[in-house]
């Protein structure tokens, strides 16, 4: 009995289903990547903002040191 | 027990006040039977082989659409959380709601049987048929009431509820259609359909009552 084309179709379906699984997995990985990218951006933003804040307080402290001799307080992080 | 009755009274009052929803379900059921009559030309042939399927698909769809709104009003008005915080066991809340849905649906179903009796000249208001309809209603309303707790996600629920409920209700649909057919004198095979219907009703009501507290827990 020659029904090789059905055997071929069956195996094709099997591999296609595994491909669908890989696509689902890739979708998950992709959204994770985006999510982590967003988290990183926010981290960078908040550290930059903190750095600017620190520079400002440090400058203010040195002015005060120049004006009066006051011990500068340790910059808060 | 008394808590269940109190909840049942509240839910029946709510169903009465909100009767437009149930009237919509009843008119949906009536129009569905008319649509089937046109689609399958039920007037021209012996209606009995098709009638059980027509009736039960109508019951199930009407039940799913009407029962799907079980907790909608409470969720919208925020009284659902209040009810959960009240010193009432969650299973009492469940039983009250399920019983009120069942009563309302049985009214709709008997009205539909009456309509079909007139339309198709087949006696449908018989004791064993009403018993089959009642047991079947217990079976599917238990599950649709449980599934209608898909919270405040109203849009998702309207689409999802039929997709969630109908595959679970396959055994009930088969058993109910065969049992109804048997009571109309159709050949239904030797399988104990009524027993399966009773087993399904017990399984779904006990399972749903046990699982309901876990779904609604905050």
């Amino acid at each position, binding site marked *: 009995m020659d029904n090789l084309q*059905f055997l071929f179709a069956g195996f094709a379906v099997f591999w296609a*289903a595994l491909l669908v699984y890989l696509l689902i997995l890739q979708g998950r990985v992709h959204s994770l990547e985006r999510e982590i990218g967003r988290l990183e951006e926010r981290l960078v933003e908040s550290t930059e903002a903190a750095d600017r804040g620190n520079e400002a307080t440090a400058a203010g402290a040195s002015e005060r040191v120049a004006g009066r001799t006051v011990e500068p307080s340790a910059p808060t992080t | 027990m008394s808590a269940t009755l109190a909840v049942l009274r509240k839910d029946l009052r709510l169903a009465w006040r909100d009767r437009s929803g149930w009237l919509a379900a009843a008119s949906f059921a009536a129009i569905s039977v008319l649509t089937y009559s046109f689609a399958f030309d039920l007037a021209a042939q012996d209606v009995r082989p098709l009638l059980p399927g027509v009736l039960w698909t109508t019951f199930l769809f009407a039940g799913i659409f009407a029962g799907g709104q079980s907790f909608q009003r409470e969720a919208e008005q925020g009284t659902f959380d209040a009810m959960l915080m009240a010193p009432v066991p969650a299973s009492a809340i469940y039983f009250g709601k399920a019983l009120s849905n069942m009563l309302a649906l049985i009214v709709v179903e008997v009205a539909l049987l009456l309509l079909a009796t007139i339309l198709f000249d087949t006696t449908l208001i018989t004791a064993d048929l009403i018993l089959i309809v009642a047991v079947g209603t217990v079976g599917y309303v238990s*599950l649709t009431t449980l599934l209608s707790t898909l919270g405040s996600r109203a849009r998702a629920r309207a689409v*999802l509820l039929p997709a969630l409920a109908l595959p679970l209700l*396959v055994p009930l649909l*088969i058993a109910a259609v065969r049992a109804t057919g048997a009571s109309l004198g159709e050949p239904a095979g030797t399988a104990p359909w009524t027993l399966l219907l009773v087993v*399904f009703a017990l399984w779904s009501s006990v399972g749903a009552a046990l699982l309901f507290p*876990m779904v609604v827990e905050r």
Partner: protein
Amino acid sequence: MNVPRALTAAVHGVYGLRWLVLPPATAIAMFALLVGAVIAAPREIVEGEVQRLMYIHVPSALMTYLAFGITFVSSLIVLWKRDMRWDAAARASATVGVIFTAITLATGAIWGKPIWGVYWAWDARLTTTLVLFLIFSAYLLARAVAGPNDEQVARYAAVFAVIGALDIPLIHMSVSWWRTLHPQPIVFRPLDGPALPDEMLLVLMIGFGAIFLLVLWMTSLLTDAERLAQRTEALRARLDREDRG
């Protein structure tokens, strides 16, 4: 050290080995299965070449139950322990189960056309598998309406999975009373042993092992992805709270 904790530790230990064991074992088993199914196994006299689909169809059908079994147990643990980690396992195993149910249905239909003359027949097993496919597709839909850390929807989905799994015996009973064309089981026959020739039986056994490993690997991979999604989501929620507070 009490027994549950020892058990948990053992499970964690075995689970930790998954990257070491599963990829090579699955690769070897799948290679053996494909060589066995396509080349090594003898050609069936009556059914011809298409019979070779059995070596993926039957194991896929059985391992569907493994996947949905994991979904069932994980859902019970979600309800019992309120541990969202098991929700990740439930979602992953349900996805893999749905994929293998689809494989089972499709390979069965493709085999059915030349052998039965029709792609689909309303036989009890076929119908049960189809309903199973619908139930767990609906599970995935219901779970997908909310984010990975929504405990309310996770519990709802878990309840649905438990009900769906417990419904399987009733579905099977009702549809087998309703219709019964599928070849009877030929491997797990209680009395006179399997009815397959030895070479075919060997390839089929390799198939069970290979698909078993494949399902486990696919499930654990997807579980890890879902788990990572939960963790990043939780991290973002925490950052949001800190920004506001």
